[in-house]
């Protein structure tokens, strides 16, 4: 769609999957884009996510507020 914003992909951090700004032409191309992002997501889910989940359980049990 828009090549300019495609260039922003590397510079700006996002927690959402990074969809390519140009249209994906084949399943193979889609897979090449998807796999690295799925790995990053899984890694974050298991590290950042585990920290959040454990902290949440602990604070809820203690009856305290979870501050971001």
């Amino acid at each position: 769609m828009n090549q300019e914003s495609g260039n922003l992909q590397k510079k700006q951090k996002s927690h959402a999957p990074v969809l390519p700004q140009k249209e994906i032409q084949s399943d193979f191309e889609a897979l090449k884009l998807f796999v690295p992002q799925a790995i990053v997501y899984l890694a974050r889910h298991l590290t950042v996510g585990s920290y959040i989940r454990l902290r949440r359980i602990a604070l809820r049990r203690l009856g305290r507020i979870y501050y971001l």
Partner: protein
Amino acid sequence: MKRNTDHPAPNFLQYHDYPVSGNKTNGLGEREFRRAEYVFHSSPKTGPLAWDRLQRHFRYSIPLSLLPAVLSHMWATFRPQGAVAAERLEVTDRKQTTRMIKEKALELGAGVVGICELKDHHMTKAAKKVYKYAVSFGLPMNREIMLSAPDAKSSKEVQQVYSRCSRLTVDMARYIRSLGWPALGLPINGSSEFLHIPIAIDAGVGQLGKHGSLICKEYGSNFRLTTMLTDMPLEVDSPEDIGVDDVCLKCRACSNVCPPQAISDSKQWVRGIEKWYVDFDRCVPYFSDTYGCSICVEVCPWSGPGRGIKLSEKALARRQ
């Protein structure tokens, strides 16, 4: 199955240093029209947003059991849209072509379909109007599962329906492209440049409810939306008044039960339009804490199976 009434307490998740108010970004109280701006769900296009820390919490704190559904949804957003065929199907009878497109959408899993011309208020500030028409699709959720909201099961159902939404919009775009017309499916992935609810309202899919979600006769609010854009000449639908305002003005089912009390009982001015509005700053922390909440859409009387048509008939009859 009975509805889950054991809701987590509000105000558990809070900011130490509250970012800019999402209500301000959304234009609450503004009487002049302007296009919407991104506030939550950042993407490379939006850049980091003020509420990113909450988004990170929402995105990574979901239970491990939801991972397959999330990854499947993610994969659905990466599917190729296909090439535009060199040979174009000439549209001589718009009515017939529109019927053909709608039938195809229903065959691919849509529950409701509507078409409108793409207008300024359907887009965010950054979006460009490249296509002429927007096709709105509504996909129903499993009511039995959604009654347990907010929990991991209902959250998984939402992910799975969004995954189907993404597949449907891309498959429809592929189909129209195979007929030689440009089309773009908008998979559900964070913030879209095109606003699904205003498009669906103009496409006659339903009306905005007090809880800030769309209500249609067929499924109440128990469905999710997706959109496809195209240049194929189609016959547009008109917005339909099914009596939602008549019911919402008297009903307090969602506003009474909303744990963070984010739902207002009166309409408010938002970017030049007087409409139902949900307090972003109260809703989103609770939404993020409960993997997507959905309490309001499930307590809505319109969402009961078969209730929508009867409620609409009653509301419209009362006017006469």
